[in-house]
């Protein structure tokens, strides 16, 4: 019997970089990653402030996103997941 090795470490839903692979129930989702806080909010215009507060990437396909392992080590981390297939990418 031959088996194709899965692209993700098995037994996972979300791979916590510290605790290992755990069910998604243990995590809280943090949405898109790599969203920078405006350098100087005071002088940031309404539109660009609105972009920071309300606009996030909503990519179909490989998507850099944040999770926090709330039921585990409480560390925030980013991972890349394909939002079209749910595959977690290296």
């Amino acid at each position, binding site marked *: 019997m031959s088996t194709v090795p899965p692209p993700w470490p098995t037994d996972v839903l979300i791979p916590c970089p510290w*605790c*290992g692979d*755990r069910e998604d*129930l243990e995590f809280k989702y943090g949405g898109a990653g790599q969203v920078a806080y405006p350098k100087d909010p005071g002088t940031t215009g309404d539109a660009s402030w609105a972009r920071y507060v309300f606009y996030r990437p909503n990519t179909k396909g490989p998507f850099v996103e944040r999770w926090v392992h709330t039921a585990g080590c409480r560390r925030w981390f980013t991972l890349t997941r394909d939002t079209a297939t749910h595959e977690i990418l290296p």
Partner: protein
Amino acid sequence: MIAEAIRRSALADYADRFAFLSAASNRGLSVREVPFLTQINLRVNPSETGHMSAIARELGFALPVDPNTVASRGGRSCLWLGPDEWLIVARPNQQTAVEASLRSALGEHGGSVVDVSANRTVIEVTGPAARDLLAHGCAVDLHPKRFEPGHCAQTLLARAGVMIHLIDVTPTFHLYVRASFAGYLADWLLDASGSD
């Protein structure tokens, strides 16, 4: 002292039910509360070797830096909670001493030391049927090959956050659960023990 006489553990009301369950269990399952353990939450940057070795000197052993592992010696254990966070566990009534020694090891500006002894209580689940019992509510793979004595995991058991520490191969598990959730988890364990 008086204080010890009047303190009350989170699961004091469950002693009888646990005892009955353990007696009634025909599958070698025993459940009891291990109350009042000294528990100190320690946060320190592991790359600060000075702090790490000072703490090792105070404890008599080094903090475990491998995730999901526990280091123990002389009745003291240290459970890994996160990359810069540990739980020091000792016999009851040592929080003042342990907290002081850790503080002195850290000095000023070095991480954090917090007495959380009353934050969680410990439920001991032991016996050949212990793994099957936990499998009713724990998604972590507790198979002997994957989860050995000296391993620990912060996870969910049913709907409660727990820290699971495997003590020995019996297997004996220590479940650390926050005091306010302890009653729920006890009820869940009593119910789950009704499943074969």
